[in-house]
């Protein structure tokens, strides 16, 4: 059974929590005691309706302010697959939390209030979904009940979306538009009788039929990458000479017998075995946590990368990246950071800042000397030792990294490799 990871974006006012509550309710994923707790909490707040946002806004500060601050993870399932929703904040101050929630998702559901149409926030969410190269975007035009279930209003919003933000996307991205009413459950699980003019599927059917990111292309056609997390050497009687490399395949597929190269060093060998616990496998794909053994005793340790001969990634010490800044302390040229690429951490220096884009108002800043919280910029980096990367647009699973501030240990930024 597979898992579909969804990021929802939109503010409480767009009916995001109601939509999630609706999905949980319709798939029987919310229990009686939780509904009772919601009713009691709503009453305590002096509301005369059941506030479904209380279900997802789990922090005291969130409930006080009535906004989502941090990502909440919500789970439901159908007979077909398991769903994980990363419910992310809409306010621009929490853009970093939105990126956190969205980074692992294959689908972004962007909510638009039918009465208000496309907002700054809509643009921001779509921009981030595209930055992360999310293959699927679903624009859910919500509160159709308050727009008389009007086809022309829906078409107007779709058009507005395509004109104002549509060009921020990328080739291969699918965007679908669905008119819904979360409050009344229209076009959520079943086709709405209120909107006969809509000839697409309801939201849940669309989700059920989406292909996952990793399944869009056959694994064997994607360059295979295996970052080594650790060397396993039991040195026990039964496994005296055993030496295996433990890790999780980040892309593509490996087969027993494949000719491989280990980076750094570039020594070559052949795959002797692929194991998952006590099972010996013939092949393994992206996402599998395995132990790989090689025919020859070559130099491989934590941080090494195993790739197939002829498909190796670049060994890079100078690179250009788009960076999404997440720290209150701004990024500045000349400063030193740690760069963590997958499981590999090396020292890095910011050589220069090329440009900065301000996500709040979509402005390009003139002559930037720093990148502030929630801004996105292009930077040039120099590393103390090479990392083994691909460009994010070519192979996203091996093309991103984080920057860690060595003074605070904070995860300060998320980078996408654009060039080297």
């Amino acid at each position, binding site marked *: *059974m*597979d*898992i579909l990871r969804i990021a929802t974006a939109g503010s409480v006012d767009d009916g995001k929590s*109601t939509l999630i*509550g609706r999905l949980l*309710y*319709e798939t029987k994923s919310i*229990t*009686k*005691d*939780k509904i009772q707790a*919601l009713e009691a*909490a709503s009453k305590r707040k002096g509301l005369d*309706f059941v506030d*479904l946002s209380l*279900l997802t806004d*789990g*922090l005291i*500060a969130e*409930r006080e302010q009535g906004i989502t*601050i*941090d990502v*909440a*993870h*919500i*789970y439901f*399932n*159908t*007979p077909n697959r*398991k769903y994980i929703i990363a419910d992310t904040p809409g306010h621009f101050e929490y853009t970093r*939390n939105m990126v*956190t929630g969205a*980074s*692992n998702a294959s689908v972004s559901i962007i909510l638009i209030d039918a009465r208000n149409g496309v907002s700054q926030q809509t643009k921001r969410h779509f921009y981030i979904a595209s930055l992360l190269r999310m293959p699927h975007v679903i624009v859910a035009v919500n509160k159709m009940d308050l727009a008389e279930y009007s086809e022309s209003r829906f078409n107007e919003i779709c058009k507005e979306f395509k004109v104002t933000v549509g060009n921020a996307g990328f080739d291969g991205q699918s965007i679908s538009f669905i008119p819904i009413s979360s*409050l*009344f*459950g229209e076009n959520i699980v079943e086709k709405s009788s209120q909107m006969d003019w809509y000839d697409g599927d309801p939201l849940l059917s669309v989700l059920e039929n989406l292909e996952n990111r990793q399944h869009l292309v056959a694994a064997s056609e994607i360059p295979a990458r295996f970052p080594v997390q*650790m060397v*396993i*050497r*039991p040195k026990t009687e039964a496994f005296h000479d055993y030496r*295996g490399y*433990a*890790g*999780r395949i980040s892309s593509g597929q490996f087969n027993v017998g494949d000719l491989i190269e280990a980076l750094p060093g570039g020594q070559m060998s052949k795959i002797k075995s692929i*194991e*998952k*616990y006590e099972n010996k496998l013939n092949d393994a794909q992206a996402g*599998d*946590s395995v*132990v790989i053994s090689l025919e020859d005793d070559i130099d491989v340790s*934590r941080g090494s990368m195993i790739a197939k001969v002829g498909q190796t990634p670049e060994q890079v010490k100078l690179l250009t990246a788009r960076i999404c800044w997440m720290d209150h302390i701004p990024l500045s040229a000349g400063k030193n950071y*740690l760069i*963590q690429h997958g499981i590999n951490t090396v020292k890095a220096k910011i050589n220069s800042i090329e440009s900065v884009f301000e996500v709040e108002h979509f402005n390009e800043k003139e002559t930037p000397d720093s990148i502030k919280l929630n801004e996105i910029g292009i930077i040039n980096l120099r590393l103390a030792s090479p990392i083994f990367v691909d460009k994010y647009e070519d192979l996203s*699973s091996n093309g991103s990294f*984080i920057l860690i501030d060595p003074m605070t*240990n*904070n*995860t300060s930024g*998320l980078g996408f490799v654009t060039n080297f």
Partner: protein
Amino acid sequence: MEQELVKMQSKQNFKSNRSFPRQLEDEAIYIIREVAAQFEKPALLFSGGKDSITLVRLAQKAFYPGKIPFPLVHIDTGHNFPETIDFRDKLVEELGLELIIGHVEESIKEGKVKEESGKYASRNALQTVTLLDTIEAGKFDACIGGARRDEEKARAKERIFSVRDDFGQWDAKKQRPEMFDILNGKIELGENVRVFPISNWTELDVWNYIKEEEMEIPSIYYSHQRNVFKRDGMIWADSEFINKSDDEKAYEATVRFRTVGDMTCTAAVLSDADNIDTIIDEIIGAEISERGARIDDKRSEAAMEKRKQQGYF
């Protein structure tokens, strides 16, 4: 928006899945290996419940054919179900693991915490102090725990690598962003990280996993006869650790436990489910959530978040 929940009518009859999504296991193993690689002295927080038993299985798989390279740490409130303790000792022996036990009893004797009194007296909240002391004494820089995000709404906000300060506190507003599968385990001396490899599992996922892996679990998860009494609409196990009032009469019933904390904070459910399949049927049909039977969560809406701020895992 008014009275929306009341109007909600489910339009479809959903069947739940009964197979375990294997990606969750791969993800958890990746996380556990990162802990072993990034930290000097990790430990696995073991309660004897199904979630921590699942963690032990995952750790076994992560390092196979090598051994689990860190100890289990158990905080013993002294009020545990004897079945849980027996199970713990058997598991540790079978797998040849190191077990470190922190006793709440000792924290009480040392005067670090005060035993609660009254009818709701429980050592559940006290164990945080013992936990923090045990972490400090063992110099553990990473503690693997079996918390899941679906359990409770404050937990739904938790990161996989959750940094705690010198005092073991969780600060929700200062959480590090966590992107893709990049796990930043950098900390200062004195700080430690709580790690939650099964964050993305639901209760049903855990049960489906236990079934597919044919894992053993403590007998109290299965239906059995027990002396119980009723309080606040819940069924409590009768034990010497709970102060019953005169009108609370114990009687025998067929029950099982859905979650295993200590005897003072875990309620039983009436159940005939005596094997893994009937338990899964029961979970799927349940109208009450798992932590609905946790008396410790009922104290207030923010009970869990407040305990986490203090260092509770």
